[in-house]
């Protein structure tokens, strides 16, 4: 079996590289974490747009096998899976807990892209407290804490725009072998 998988993998890699060279693109895998309800609807819309761009986007609650609790799945995958980027929109206590859990995991933190409503951003906002402090620590250590405004009443970009822009650029950098 191992030999069969090894041979198949070689052939797949060859076909993949041929196709990547032809269309000058590559495919990345991103995970979208966030809140339930309206947050989930928003993530579905973003997933669809990412997929149109040729990016494989996953929402754990919908895409992962339901036989196991999403939190267990997320912890395992974020540490060991071949995910390129993890976008976490901190818009609920659940997603805040996920950030607190993952923000200092050495295998996870570099892949994290944290999206925060601008009023809670440690630089642009005026909130104080545990979460703002966590954002600031993450920002100082890893960067990648982005302020957004989905109401479009300020000059901050929407969460969708941030995710699409960063994912597209990351994919291009990966295609050029720069990440």
């Amino acid at each position, binding site marked *: 079996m191992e030999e069969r998988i090894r041979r*198949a993998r070689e052939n797949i890699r060859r*076909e*993949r590289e041929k*196709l990547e060279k032809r269309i000058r693109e590559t*495919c990345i895998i991103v995970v979208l974490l966030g809140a339930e309800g309206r947050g989930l609807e928003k993530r579905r819309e973003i997933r669809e747009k990412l997929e149109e761009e040729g990016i494989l986007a*996953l929402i754990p609650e919908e895409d992962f096998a339901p036989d196991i609790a999403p939190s267990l799945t997320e912890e395992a995958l974020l540490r060991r899976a071949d995910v390129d980027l993890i976008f976490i929109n901190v818009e609920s206590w659940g997603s805040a807990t996920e950030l607190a859990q993952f923000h200092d995991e050495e295998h996870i933190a570099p892949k994290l892209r944290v999206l925060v409503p601008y009023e809670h951003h440690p630089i642009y906002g005026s909130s104080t407290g545990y979460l703002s402090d966590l954002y600031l620590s993450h920002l100082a250590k890893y960067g990648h804490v982005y302020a957004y405004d989905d109401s479009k009443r300020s000059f901050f970009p929407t969460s969708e725009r941030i995710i699409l822009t960063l994912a597209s650029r990351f994919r291009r950098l990966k295609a050029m072998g720069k990440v």
Partner: protein
Amino acid sequence: MDEARRMLKVYRAIDNDHRLNILAVLSNEPGISFNDLAKRIGINRGLLAYHLGVLKRVRLVRCEYERRSKKFTRYWLTEEGMEIVRKFKLNENDEATSIKV
């Protein structure tokens, strides 16, 4: 371009030993449950849930839910999944058959 991008997604999805193993097992044991698949593949259940998610997202695998005493999921290859298994000779029986022919 759309078709090329779709194929690129498929290749990215299957360019992974665990996911190829999953396809190989599903081709031999269609309808296998999540727990049995976890035992056969021998990986962490959380990670298996992720790999199945990737394969489902590119439509190589489908699942059905059965509600009996607790939530229970079974997995199958889709037509496209079977095509990939044949193309990259992931099922040992396929090769045995072609050698006989």
